[in-house]
């Protein structure tokens, strides 16, 4: 299941359509980092509303992806983590340390716009 990546001005938006396998997640990481380079994007929003489970592999992949993107001078925001998924993550001891999170796509966009406002 490939994750479509949408270009919206200086930002990229990747929206999970369903539960992703490890291979899908790795592919998304490669694809997003490549597109950030290609489009010189300032920010990336990853919408995980449709993600059924955020286990150790998924959170590590997202964390690493955000770090790679940061090295390109761009910012990543994870949006849409469902309450029960958040609950399970905390029980499992998983954090998305160093990665911005927001409630939904709208708040994620607001966060990025705010973040880059001064440099526009």
């Amino acid at each position, binding site marked *: 299941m490939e994750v479509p990546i949408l270009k919206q001005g200086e930002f990229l938006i990747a929206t999970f359509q369903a*539960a992703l*396998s*490890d291979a899908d997640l790795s592919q998304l990481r490669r694809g997003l980092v490549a597109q950030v380079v290609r489009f010189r994007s300032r920010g990336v929003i990853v919408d995980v509303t449709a993600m059924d*489970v955020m*286990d150790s592999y998924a959170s590590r992949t997202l964390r690493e992806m955000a770090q790679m993107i940061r090295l390109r001078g761009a910012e990543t925001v994870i949006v849409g983590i469902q309450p*029960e998924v958040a609950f*399970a993550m905390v*029980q499992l*001891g*998983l954090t998305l340390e160093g990665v911005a999170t927001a409630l939904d796509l709208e708040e994620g966009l607001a966060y990025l716009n705010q973040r880059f406002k001064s440099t526009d």
Partner: protein
Amino acid sequence: MSFGEIRVAIDSEQDIVSARQQGRALALELGFSAVDSTLIATAISELARNIVSYAGTGEITLKTIQDSTWKGILIVAADDGPGIYDLRQALRDGFSTSGSLGLGLPGVKRLMDEFQIASQPGKGTRVEVKKWRQ
């Protein structure tokens, strides 16, 4: 309510998603809440991933259980892989990779109500976890 069991062969990372989805479906069918069903699906995801990462192949069995009062779900993750040399270290709770083997087993233990593991070097690993419906 059937008390059969669902066996999911774990041969590749694709099977991880299938195992946890079947686990969630069974949990919801048993009347577990959305939160508990997600905890169960997450535990299955971690256990199935250990099979893929360390043993290559194995099997996840999902089973409905019942004692005198409660209904619950039993998950067995079994493989014939290399086994775990230092079980104590694998179960040590580092809350991350520091100090533990990075198998996520302490986390799985926290997600579930009961946790049992049997493993010997060269003889595979068998993890049994249970969650009871509140």
